[in-house]
C-alpha cells in the first residue's frame, strides 16, 4: 500500500470542499487533538487487510461538519449526528484511496468511536496527514499493513 502525503492531501481537500463547502488546509507539523472522534475504514483484497484509514478530529470539527451536512445550527448538532458525519467522511476518504489501489480491493464498513485518541492497528508503514478546517485541526492516517 503506497499512497503518499500528496495523494491524501488532494483527496481530503476535495472531500472537504465538495461535501462541506469549506477548505481543509494541510499543515506540516503534527497538531494535538484531544478527546476527539475517530472514524476508520479498512481496505482489503481477497480477504486480507491491506490497510486502514483513520480520521481523527475534535468534537468541534465533527460538529461543524455535521451542522453543514444536516443543515443544523451548531448548537443543535447531537453526538449521533457528529458520529454519522465522521463515518461518511472516512467512507469517502477511504473510497477515494481505494480507487488508487488494486481494482479488486474492497472497502469495509466504517466504524466510529467517540472519545479518546487515535489508537491505530499494527502498521507496516504509515502516512500521517494533518489539516486545519472549520472547528479546528484534524488528522488523517493511512496505516498500511502489507
Amino acid at each position, binding site marked *: 500500500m503506497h499512497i503518499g502525503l500528496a495523494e491524501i492531501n488532494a483527496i481530503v481537500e476535495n472531500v472537504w470542499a465538495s461535501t462541506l463547502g469549506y477548505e481543509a488546509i494541510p499543515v506540516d507539523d503534527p497538531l494535538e487533538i484531544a478527546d476527539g472522534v475517530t472514524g476508520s475504514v479498512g481496505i482489503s483484497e481477497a480477504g486480507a487487510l491491506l490497510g486502514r484509514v483513520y480520521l481523527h478530529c475534535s468534537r468541534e470539527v465533527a460538529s461543524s461538519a455535521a451542522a453543514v451536512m444536516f443543515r443544523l445550527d451548531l448548537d443543535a448538532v447531537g453526538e449521533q449526528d457528529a458520529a454519522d*458525519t465522521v463515518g461518511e467522511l472516512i467512507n469517502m476518504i477511504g473510497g477515494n484511496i481505494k480507487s488508487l489501489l488494486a481494482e479488486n480491493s474492497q472497502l469495509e464498513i466504517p466504524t466510529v468511536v467517540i472519545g479518546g485518541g487515535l489508537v491505530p492497528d499494527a502498521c507496516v508503514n504509515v502516512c500521517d496527514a494533518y489539516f486545519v478546517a472549520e472547528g479546528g485541526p484534524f488528522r488523517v492516517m493511512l496505516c498500511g499493513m502489507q
Partner: protein
Amino acid sequence: MKILVADDSKAMRSIVIRTLRQAGYSGHKIIEAADGAEALGIAKSEEPDLIISDWNMPEMNGLDFLIALRAAEFDTPFGFVTTEASPEMRELAEKNGAAFLITKPFTAEDFQRHFDPFLD
C-alpha cells in the same frame, strides 16, 4: 416530480438532498430510504420519477435493488451515487439498466450533468 434517495447513511442522504437543491432542482418531492429493500417497496408504491441510490447498503444493496426493480418491470430512471466506482461496477450498473454512476464526493454540477435529462 418525485425523487427517491436511497442510502444507509443519514448524513449522505442529507448531502444528496442539499446538493439537489444547490443544483436547482427545487419543488420536487424527496422520498428517503435507508436500504435497498425499503427503497424497492417505496419505488413500487410511489413510482418516483428518478431514483438515486447508494451501492453498498444493508438488507439489499443498490445493485440488487436495481435488478429487482427491473425484474418487476419498472423502468424508472435509476442511478448510483457511491463511494466506490471500479470499471467492473460501472459495467454492472450499465448492464443492469442504470443511467449513471456518480462518485462521492460530488458537486451540484455533477448532478446537473446527470439529472437534467430526467428532472425539470
